[in-house]
């Protein structure tokens, strides 16, 4: 196959490149650069060298706490991906294409609800004093209603539980696509060997789904580090700072306290964590693909 040449190729690439340079690489560079300044919006940036870094690593007690919270969030998010996996498997096992299509549509529908709406609905209908959870507890005999989002013990859990049962989303489709990729012959061979049902799923199908599982794990890790919108909408950092994830602290320092330089340091730290995770997951995925 010969490749094409046209005079507009290069200009087009340059245009796209400049778009990416302006909206991706310039912010990236500024993230690094502004962390050396004390920058309060409306005033001129002031050079402070390593001061922001020193404050972040030693003087700010909120940062280590927020990374502990982040760890909890990451583990929890990964654990919840079991549900779409099982749902995809059961869905795949259905016989009629129409029912499969119907269930898939039902599962995908919650995915299209705007995140803000979901959070507000959970806030008002499920976690409030007269909400669903307190009502259920009331039937069970619990006396006073629990203030889910005002109690530091429960607040993070409450924020994470939004979206229960966690089945809708991209993961369901990815796992389903992976399952349809598996040749029937493998399943039949396993069945002939006497391996059926759960055992077949665990020992035959799951290992073959490793590429999809790897993709989902890396996507989940990276997105759980970055998202803090749920915290912002539901608890605003939680009672005290008990739901203050690092991303939220970054936002708080920038847009509430007005310290953009310090916020960039937090952003930079998170970026390094993501880079490290990406490196590790890429190597793992490469190993899986080699098999």
């Amino acid at each position, binding site marked *: 196959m010969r490749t094409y040449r046209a005079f507009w190729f290069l200009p087009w690439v340059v245009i796209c490149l400049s778009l990416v340079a302006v909206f991706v690489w310039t912010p990236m560079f500024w993230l690094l650069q502004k962390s050396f300044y004390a920058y309060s919006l*409306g005033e001129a940036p002031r050079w402070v060298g390593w001061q922001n870094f020193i404050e972040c690593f030693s003087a700010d007690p909120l940062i280590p706490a927020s990374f502990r919270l982040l760890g909890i969030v990451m583990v929890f998010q990964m654990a919840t991906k079991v549900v779409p996996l099982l749902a995809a498997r059961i869905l795949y096992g259905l016989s009629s294409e129409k029912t499969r299509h119907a269930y898939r549509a039902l599962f995908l529908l919650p995915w299209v609800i705007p995140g803000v709406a979901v959070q507000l609905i959970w806030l008002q209908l499920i*976690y409030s*004093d007269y909400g669903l959870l307190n009502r259920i507890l009331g039937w069970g005999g619990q006396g006073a209603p629990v203030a889910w989002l005002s109690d530091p013990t429960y607040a993070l859990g409450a924020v994470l539980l939004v979206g229960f049962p966690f089945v809708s989303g991209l993961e369901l489709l990815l796992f389903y696509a992976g399952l349809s990729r598996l040749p029937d012959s493998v399943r039949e061979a396993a069945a002939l060997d006497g391996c059926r049902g759960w055992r077949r799923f665990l020992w035959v199908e799951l290992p073959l789904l490793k590429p999809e599982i790897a993709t989902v794990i890396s996507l989940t890790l990276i997105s759980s580090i970055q998202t803090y919108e749920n915290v912002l909408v539901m608890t605003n950092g939680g009672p005290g700072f008990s739901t203050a994830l690092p991303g939220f602290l970054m936002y708080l320092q920038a847009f*509430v306290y*007005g310290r953009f330089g310090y916020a960039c340091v937090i952003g930079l730290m998170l970026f390094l964590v993501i880079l490290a995770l990406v490196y590790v997951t890429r190597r793992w995925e490469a190993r899986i693909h080699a098999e």
Partner: protein
Amino acid sequence: MSRVFCVCILSSSRRIPHKKVVMKSWFSPLSAWVCLFLVLPGAVWGEAGLIRFCPGFIYYPGRSPLGTGTPQDGFTEVARSFEEQESGVRIRFEMVPGSREYFLTQVANGTSPEILQVNAEEVLPDIRKGWYLPLDEWLNRPNPFAGSTRETWLESFGYPDVYAKRRGEDGKVYTICYDINETAIFYNRTRWRELGLPIPRTWAEFLSCMDRIRQAGYQPINTGLDFHVDWNLDLFFDQLYFSEYPQMFPRLAQPGAARPNLTGREILELFRQGYFQASDPRFREMWRLIREFRDYAPRDIQHSDPFRDFLGEKCLMFWNSSFFAYRLETMKPSFEIGILYPPPITRESSSLATGIPFASLGGAGTQYAVAKSAWADTGNPRTSPQVASVIRFLQWITSEPRYSRVVAERPMMIPILRGIPMPSLLQDFAPILERRTVPIRWYSLFDLRFRDNLRRNAELYLNGFMGLEEFLKTQEGNFRQAETSRQES
């Protein structure tokens, strides 16, 4: 640019004379639109003679605030009459969110409306950055649209304390206070009489009334978290520190209107002397009393809706502001509503009590500030014709009969202009307004980081997740942090 595209496309397709590719008709217009959006900055501001005005949701024309009644048009009429008077000026109404992010981004950028409805506490921390216009120059001269030339614009507003408390550290006024919003406790008079409760004359009596209400199966009182760390702080601080004022704040002895507001520096100086620390007995006692009082409020004070509980008669008292009187009226409650003011804290409740009556808040309701987008045309507020128009508009809306047309359209807010009668619905607030006003709002003298820290820790303390000692320690840290921030900037 799209034409270049089409030429390229067509020229490349000419290589195959016998297989002409017909370009879809939608491609060129689509690429034109895409390119157009790539270069269109979407300038929304910058029209000469256009004043963008955010009147706040209470007066926003065309809406009926709180969904009550017919849409209002007070400001529409006033704005139109202003436009007829001044040629070449147009007023456009806009709604802006009250969030901090908005101020940090839009106001700093000079793209906000020229006249903003914003509280002085939000404005004053940023006056050093030049985001808002000091208004003394015009306030100290007569209002050209008012009847008399004998009194200055500032004097035409009654309640000089309201303005005095909202001066910046430089002593200047940055917000026009358009009306008054005073705090009070609404109570369910029908049930109150049923239970045979007296009107409490001391704090201890008040608490025992609430105990009896609780025993009868109702919730005594409902407030929100914001109230506990805002108005409540002012009122209790005043109750306990009143006898110390001569020592702490000698400046307070100056006459009302000319008295500049306190500075954060003075508070920090007092902190170094030992006030506001864990060892300060009054500070401790203040927080203990607030916590004791909070226990009468429902469990979830952050997210619950106090209004509905009061209307549903689950709760017999509701501590909020005069603004709610109108709203309560429109909901046509089935019970009689009365107004209380908290009775003084006496020695019975606390050994450090001063026993003076609770001060009123001197709360301004709607306040308007002039943002820096107003002098974006010339860069200098003194020479900017836009600023001159903006000031004239503000003078227009604070003179009769325009003022009554707006504020008296509905009896929601208490009028501040001298000589305007109090709406009959709000008559019960008149005696409250005659009280002494709280002289200091100490926690709003620092930056937002201080208030954020105070609010978060107070929430934990008030909800029982943090003990008093721990809480006082966090606040000591907070004051020290405020000190460091001031030194840095």
